């Protein structure tokens, strides 16, 4: 029986491995960094499963393909299905109207409805509630996939993949750039803070003319605060400006965030193609699955299904843009 080799154990690699195994394939995984951790950019993600919200600034496939993520992840890890709340300060209401025009599957909510959904949000006159959206804890999700794959007999090799592998799938994100020349890195910066005084139960997005900020509850008063999007390939550290913007946005949501402890600062590069949509390419014996951009958890299931379709059934999903087997 063919053994499929997946290279990279970030969200793309693990999702591909999981999808292949679920279709009866035999799989091994190579990653010199070892089990999922801080070396992969999916470690630093928000974990929002928000296909409708993301459609505001993305192309149609993100909304359509992203919807498969809800059930795919629910079958594999704990998913909180309590929607997304989008709010704006009164001066930015034109941005809220624009957001509403560009998206779907929401209801408009007023100040009292916002307070009913999230009692700790007081000062927002209008908002949008995307009830079907969900979120997960990215690190828990990676860990769960990793454990399930081990239980299913997948061997993880803590080393570089041998050259001249046959039947291999390269999910190395931006490290595949030596082959995928149209791949670029888009810098993202995030913070993890702890603030038990504030209770939010669902991801909240604060619209802002310069940066779309979101805050994702991780439980126990811990929140992920993200994320910048900068056309830069320097992932060495966060800038003071970004940190100020992230923290002042949290403060604008609720001034009690001013007392939060900063637990973590994350900086990494999202792998992206020029249209910011993922791609599957088969070049010789290697299938490349890459370019999840800011949609790692949202689009990894669709990407994995596309890879499995190509690898196991030779079917070409819409993400396949090149096939030179």
């Amino acid at each position, binding site marked *: 029986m063919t053994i499929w080799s997946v290279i990279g154990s970030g969200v793309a690699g693990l999702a591909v491995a999981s999808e292949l195994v679920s279709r009866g394939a035999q799989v091994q995984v190579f990653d010199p960094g070892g089990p999922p951790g801080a070396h992969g950019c999916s470690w630093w993600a928000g974990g929002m499963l928000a296909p409708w919200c993301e459609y505001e*600034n*993305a*192309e149609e496939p993100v909304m359509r393909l992203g919807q498969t993520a809800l059930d795919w992840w629910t079958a594999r890890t704990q998913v909180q299905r309590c929607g997304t709340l989008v709010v704006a300060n009164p001066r930015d209401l034109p941005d809220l109207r*624009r957001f509403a*025009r*560009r998206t779907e599957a929401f209801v408009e909510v007023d100040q009292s409805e916002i307070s009913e959904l999230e009692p700790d949000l007081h000062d927002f006159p209008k908002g949008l509630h995307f009830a079907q959206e969900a979120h997960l804890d990215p690190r828990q999700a990676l860990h769960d996939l990793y454990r399930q794959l081990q239980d299913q007999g997948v061997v993880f090799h803590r080393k570089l993949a041998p050259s001249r592998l046959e039947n291999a799938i390269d999910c190395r994100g931006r490290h595949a750039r030596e082959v995928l020349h149209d791949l*670029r*890195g888009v*810098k993202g910066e995030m913070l993890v803070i702890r603030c038990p005084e504030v209770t939010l139960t669902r991801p909240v997005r604060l619209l802002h*003319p310069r940066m779309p900020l979101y805050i994702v509850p991780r439980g126990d008063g811990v929140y992920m605060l993200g994320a910048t999007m*900068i*056309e*830069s*390939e*320097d992932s060495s550290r966060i800038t003071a*400006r970004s940190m100020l913007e992230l923290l002042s946005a949290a403060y604008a949501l609720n001034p009690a965030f001013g007392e939060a402890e900063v637990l973590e600062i994350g900086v990494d590069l999202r792998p*992206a*193609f*020029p*249209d*910011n*949509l993922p791609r599957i390419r088969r070049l010789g014996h290697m299938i490349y699955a890459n370019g999840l951009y800011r949609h790692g958890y949202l689009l990894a299931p669709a990407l994995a299904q596309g890879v499995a379709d190509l690898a196991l059934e030779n079917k070409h999903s819409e993400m396949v843009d090149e096939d030179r087997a």
Partner: protein
Amino acid sequence: MKTFYGTDLPNPLMLGTAQYPSPAILEQAFRESEAGVATVSLRRESGAGQTFWQMIRDLGVLVLPNTAGCHTVKEAVTTAHMAREVFDTKWIKLELIGHTDSLQPDVFQLVEAARILTEDGFQVFPYTTDDLIVGERLLAAGCEVLMPWGAPIGSGRGLNNEYALRAMRAEFPGVPLVIDAGIGLPSHAARAMELGYDAVLLNTAVARAGDPPAMARAMMQATLAGQLAHQADPIEARDMAEASTPVIGKAFLS
């Protein structure tokens, strides 16, 4: 059309490169509009935006780097030097922000930075207000182009003070003038050109539109229409109707 530091623009639309949903859509917006100048910000990419900058170079249009986000003369001068290296051009759109909410230019620092950069061989495109005296000072500092705002950056309010913009056009008849910032609709761009401005520069109105390439095309068509109308010497508005066919001699029934 007037030249910009000796360079003829292929058309009067300058398009920004920020805030598009993706570089692919940015590229389509340029291709469909045929805008001849791309402005690009360096501040936030600080030396590591090579891939993105290469995409801008690959557009094959004139590049006008800017100092967006700079609040001091020193920052702006440093950014301008970086821009000259990255894009191999003397052009710099000088932006010095004085007010956080309105992003209004700090015209005092602007004049100072324009003088320093001009002496250093730069060809400065200053983002300024519609103040005539500031305009004079910028020209005295060595600028050969002025770029007054129509309205605050990203506000889409159009030409906030048409009277002042007319006065500016009349005051500096020989200077290339560009409406920079505030354009939200093609009609705003057309109006700017009807007033006799030489070009318009815009970004948000296209990048944040639902269909950026279509809006870019609309902006180009409006800009060209306004330019053509200005050259065609439009009629004056008047209070009473003026029949376009004579009444005398026409048969009429009583």
